């Protein structure tokens, strides 16, 4: 701690260009070396780290998927035993949802939203660093426990009573529940950051109708996270309480109820699907506009569709529970929104088709993934409308039909746009282009491999093959299609391998990208690739939704910010009129220390309730270290 309190003194108007950028680079820099890496609060570094880590989890989860397909390739295989298989499908699902899909979408927001709204860092950058460390710790908890043969084995939705104290002795179910806590804390933190960044740090002039659609999508997603994730935290906490201190939330013998678990889980779990899907459609809207060479058709309709999807997402959860014997009227009530949510999706698809139709589409790899998305997602959406119907759902519930359906909507609806988005924004992340040739190979293999793997599962489901069986008997008619699906899974995996090779090779030696290789219209392309630590030398000022198309080669900017403290601009929520010059925190090691303290408390609390008492003391100490002013210009007004 310094004895004096420093104040910001130098305005950017006083500096010529080279000195300005030099001074900004010094103010906003991340030190090199380990200390710098552990203490950085740069949203780009954290975002890149977040995305990379999430893709590592995708890779690991993919390995589990391949193991399951090998096991199911023929009847009565002995590659994996039933206990290991239970762990594998549980960890595959939990990993893909909680450690890959949600984090990777939020991470894209962490990297891109501040750039797209024209600010220098995300709101609450230290919280952002904390979020990453919590996410990483949650992932390590899950995978290390799996390596120790104590991985969760109760399915990714961990239904009671199977996951309760009576049927799941040991700590496997607790690992699942606490992994939830880690990842939800991380996700909720990012959600608040994104909401506040979008509300308060938009470039002057970026009124509500000029916000890029991906940013709108991340805003809606963040609200869905904020409203949905507390449900799973309530659920997983009550599960741990039932298991650790003998509460009876889910114990019917003492007035509890097992279906209460399903209500809580799916009140989170269905919006979860849209937490993954809404960012993906935001990506699609962005890519479709750039590669059609025209503004997207129906901006207002698309925004309303995003918000409508976010609201309807909360009215669907019971359709996961159609076979639990709920009242018929209640089921019908939930069928209605389950089908109605197809409407905003349909609106978006027609808007994208109209944009492509009216534009001059350039079929680069990102657009190929968008086309693959539209085809695949429509099929997944159609089977979704099918299972929204109670009689049909009763027939195919817990069969491979459902497995096929949700892989169509999740991989088709979210992973395809995500891969397109990686090809699209990779030049911004790294300064280098990915290979168009490898990209086409990756797309082709993934698209064909995906459909060949998962389409037969619809039929297997209709033929009665249940989910989550580790093997099946030779006299059942499932062998041929299973073998075909397994062989196709190898093609799908090969596609991902090509993608990963392309990423690694391009990051090292891809063609240099320049600021705006796709001639795209939004602000992230108005700065260099990769962007400097301070993102923009001057704050951009916008007068339309497509600033780089409306004024090619030129950018309106504002000056008058300090260069010797980290300073961002706060603007009004609707009009984006400037309100204040606000400081943005410096790098700090405290978020990491807080995350370590929190991790110790959470893991300890699997074993003893007193962990919550004693483990909270180090958390409080690290939080005080985090927030106590250090006398820097950022700490003063």
């Amino acid at each position: 701690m310094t004895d004096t309190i420093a104040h910001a003194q130098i305005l950017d108007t006083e500096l010529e260009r080279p000195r300005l950028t030099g001074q900004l680079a010094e103010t906003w820099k991340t030190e090199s070396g380990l200390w710098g890496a552990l203490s950085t609060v740069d949203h780009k570094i954290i975002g890149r780290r977040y995305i990379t880590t999430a893709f590592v989890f995708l890779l690991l989860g993919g390995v589990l998927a391949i193991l399951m397909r090998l096991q199911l390739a023929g009847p009565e295989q002995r590659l994996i035993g039933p206990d290991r298989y239970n762990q594998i499908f549980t960890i595959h699902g939990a990993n893909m949802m909680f450690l890959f899909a949600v984090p990777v979408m939020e991470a894209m927001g962490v990297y891109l939203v501040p750039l797209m709204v024209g600010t220098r860092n995300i709101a609450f950058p230290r919280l952002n660093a904390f979020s990453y460390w919590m996410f990483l710790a949650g992932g390590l908890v899950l995978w290390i426990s799996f390596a120790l043969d104590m991985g969760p084995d109760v399915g990714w939705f961990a239904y009671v009573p199977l996951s309760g104290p009576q049927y799941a002795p040991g700590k496997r179910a607790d690992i699942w529940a606490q992994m939830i806590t880690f990842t939800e804390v991380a996700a909720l933190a990012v959600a608040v950051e994104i909401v506040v960044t979008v509300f308060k740090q938009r470039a002057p002039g970026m009124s509500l109708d000029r916000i890029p659609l991906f940013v709108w999508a991340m805003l809606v997603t963040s609200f869905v996270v904020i409203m949905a994730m507390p449900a799973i935290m309530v659920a997983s906490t009550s599960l741990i309480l039932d298991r650790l201190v003998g509460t009876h939330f889910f114990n019917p013998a003492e007035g509890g109820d097992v279906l209460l678990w399903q209500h809580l889980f799916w009140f989170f779990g269905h919006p979860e699907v849209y937490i993954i899907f809404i960012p993906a459609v935001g990506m699609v809207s962005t890519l479709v506009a750039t590669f059609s060479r025209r503004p997207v058709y129906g901006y207002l309709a698309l925004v309303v569709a995003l918000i409508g999807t976010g609201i309807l997402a909360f009215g669907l959860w019971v359709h996961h529970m159609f076979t639990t014997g709920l009242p018929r009227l209640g089921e019908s009530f939930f069928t209605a929104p389950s089908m109605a949510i197809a409407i905003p999706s349909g609106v978006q698809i027609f808007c994208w088709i109209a944009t492509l139709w009216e534009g001059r589409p350039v079929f680069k790899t990102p657009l190929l993934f968008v086309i693959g998305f539209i085809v695949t997602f429509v099929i997944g959406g159609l089977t979704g409308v099918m299972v929204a119907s109670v009689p049909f759902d009763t027939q195919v519930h817990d069969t491979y039909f459902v497995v096929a359906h949700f892989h169509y909507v999740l991989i088709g609806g979210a992973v395809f746009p995500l891969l397109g988005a990686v090809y699209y924004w990779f030049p911004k992340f790294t300064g280098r282009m990915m290979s168009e040739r490898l990209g086409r190979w990756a797309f082709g293999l993934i698209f064909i491999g995906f459909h060949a793997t998962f389409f037969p599962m619809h039929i297997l489901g209709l033929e009665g093959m249940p989910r989550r069986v580790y093997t099946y008997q030779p006299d059942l008619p499932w062998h041929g299609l299973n073998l075909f699906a397994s062989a196709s899974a190898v093609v799908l995996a090969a596609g991902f391998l090509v993608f990963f090779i392309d990423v690694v090779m391009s990051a090292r030696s891809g063609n240099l990208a320049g600021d705006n290789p796709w001639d795209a219209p939004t602000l992230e392309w108005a700065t260099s690739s990769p962007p400097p630590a301070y993102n923009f030398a001057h704050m951009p000022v916008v007068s339309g939704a497509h600033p780089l198309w409306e004024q090619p080669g030129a950018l309106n900017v504002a000056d008058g910010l300090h260069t010797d403290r980290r300073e961002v601009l706060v603007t009004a929520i609707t009009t984006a009129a400037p309100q204040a010059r606000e400081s943005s925190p410096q790098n700090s090691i405290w978020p990491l220390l807080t995350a370590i303290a929190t991790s110790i408390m959470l893991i300890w609390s699997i074993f003893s309730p007193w962990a919550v008492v004693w483990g909270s003391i180090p958390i409080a100490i690290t939080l005080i270290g985090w927030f106590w002013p250090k006398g820097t210009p950022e700490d003063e007004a």
Partner: protein
Amino acid sequence: MKERVVLDLSKLPLHGLGPASVTWWGTLGFMLIEGTGFALVIAVYLYLMSLAPVWPLNAQPPDVLAGTLMTVVLAASVIPNIMLSRWAEHQDLRKVRIGMVVMSALGIVPLIIRVFEFAALNVKWDTNAYGSVVWTLLGLHTTHIVTDLIDTLVLTALMFSRHGDNLRRYGDVQDNAMYWNFVVAAWLPIYGCIYWLARI
């Protein structure tokens, strides 16, 4: 890219208060998260209540004295809290310091009453599902009082330090006051739930 300066920001304040502050919005965001959490636990209470043949399950309803006293104290604490927020708005350091000390004390008093509330529930968390949910409701609210109290104590120390007399810190005081109002407001439905629904 050619830059053209069209706007001068050099006259803007170096920190915004209220809706012009990012922390104000961040606090609202966390209030929304925690408010959803409270609403969900209350929903769990109502759900279990709707299933139970009798309510409360095998227990006497909680004694209302401690809980009602809690409600009165919390409601009364809102008045100095709002005054403190006003003083912070006017950047009156002396009054803010007094107000922070008062609010620290008003954070400790409910914790003492809370001990008696747990005793007055007439049921243990592991007796039955009713006991589990009332202990969880009360426990969840207690964690909010504890965290706000720690926050208030640290901020009080800060206001007496050389970092105190600063627009940013006055903003922190206002945000902290807003959060306390939330802790009080969240208590009202919980109070009604624990003490009065059990008597219907």
